[in-house]
């Protein structure tokens, strides 16, 4: 044991099961980092889109004109899709004769809620994976460590003279599994918490936007039949 132990040697000398655990953890870590990066860019983009769209929406633009502009585009982002779905339903229902204002508003709200749900699902994809990695990978690593320490103590039982040097490498290599588990778990947990909070904030804004659109359309729906009856 004169030469210094390198991490590579420790991993290469570990037992097959511990190596499997390590490989699993490395894979989990890589995938969870991939998810983290992908979620991060997606949520940031969603936030930018919602900011931009709200600015545009409240700039006093004509809603019908906005709807026509948007329905020309082939690629719609989340908040635009919610608006387009609601407005399309509203126009379709209000063009039909014999549909009263409440029915129009119910249909519009339903259409917007469906799109909102789909959008929420889109934002939350992979977050359960991060949660799973964050909560289980310490246990997986611990399992590898316990297994490795078990083996190194079992080999110690066969020796006549027990020295620290005879168990230390085994324990050291076993502990690498725990280190890997923590390495995978910590960013996953942080990512999960941060992104689920971000998704919550975004959903609140979407819902607020939905309510505002509903209020505007509600005013219009109740105004137009009243006008027609009045005239």
């Amino acid at each position, binding site marked *: 044991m004169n030469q*210094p132990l390198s991490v590579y040697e420790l991993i290469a000398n570990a037992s097959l099961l511990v190596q499997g655990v390590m490989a699993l953890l490395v894979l989990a870590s890589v995938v969870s*980092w*991939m998810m983290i990066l*992908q979620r991060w*860019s997606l949520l940031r983009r969603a936030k930018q889109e919602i900011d931009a769209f709200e600015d545009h929406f409240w700039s006093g633009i004509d809603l019908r004109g906005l709807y026509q502009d948007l329905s020309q585009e082939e690629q719609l982002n989340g908040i635009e899709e919610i608006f387009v779905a609601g407005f399309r339903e509203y126009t379709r229902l209000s063009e039909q004769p014999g549909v009263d204002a409440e029915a129009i508003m119910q249909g519009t709200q339903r259409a917007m809620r469906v799109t909102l749900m789909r959008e929420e699902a889109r934002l939350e994809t992979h977050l359960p994976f991060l949660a799973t990695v964050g909560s289980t990978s310490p246990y997986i690593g611990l399992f590898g460590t316990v297994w490795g320490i078990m083996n190194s103590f079992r080999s110690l039982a066969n020796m006549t003279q027990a020295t620290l040097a005879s168990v230390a490498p085994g324990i050291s290599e076993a502990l690498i599994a725990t280190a890997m588990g923590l390495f995978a778990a910590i960013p996953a947990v942080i990512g999960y918490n941060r992104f689920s909070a971000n998704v919550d904030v975004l959903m609140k804004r979407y819902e607020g936007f939905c309510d505002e659109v509903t209020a505007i359309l509600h005013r219009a729906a109740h105004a137009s039949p009243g006008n027609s009856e009045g005239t």
Partner: protein
Amino acid sequence: MQSYALPLFGAVLFHVLVAAFVMRGFESQDDVAEVVTPRVVNAKLLVIEPLGKVTPVPEKQPIVRPAEPPAPKPRPASKEVEQDSVNSDDAAAKAAQSERQRKETEVQRRQQRLAALGELADDSLQRSLEAEAQQMLDAQNAQQVRTYQAGIYDLVRKNWSRPPSARNGMQARFVVELIPTGELLSVALVDSSGNEAFDRSAELAIRRAKRFSVPGDNTVFEANFRRFYFLFRPEDLLR
């Protein structure tokens, strides 16, 4: 799926970097760990001229002094006799005889001297052989003595808790007496350090040890461990 390509690349890159960092960091840490060898010398045991030592004095080179020519005593007398005597023949005969005698004695003396020289040479050879054997024995004993000294030194050092007033360069010397089983007979302060607490702590360190391991060989014990000096001199303190 296209949107996952970049994150995947980023994740893999990140892991490769972390792996490289860990590998390198681990090895450099080991290098540092190898260099550090703490020095734990905090007292010196000097066994200076043990008192009851039967000194095998290093053999001096046997000096063979060139024997001085013996004073030619009888000669001037015979000369006078020769001059004064009327009977020259008798005198001549006497002179010849004395001369012979003188020669004989001289030869004898020379032989004696030679014999003595030879003896001396023999003696010196034998003595040098003995000295060599003695030296080897001494070396062995010295080795043994050093081992036991180190043991005593360690034992006392372990028992020594230095007072806060101890400073580098203080020294206290004790004379320690043991009985052949290694048990402590007496401790006496010879040279004080001037600091009472320091002296007391040092004395206590020796007393706490109670029993030292000493060589079973009685002559070695008598020579080195019956009475010896113990010098306490801290050198590793910060102040």
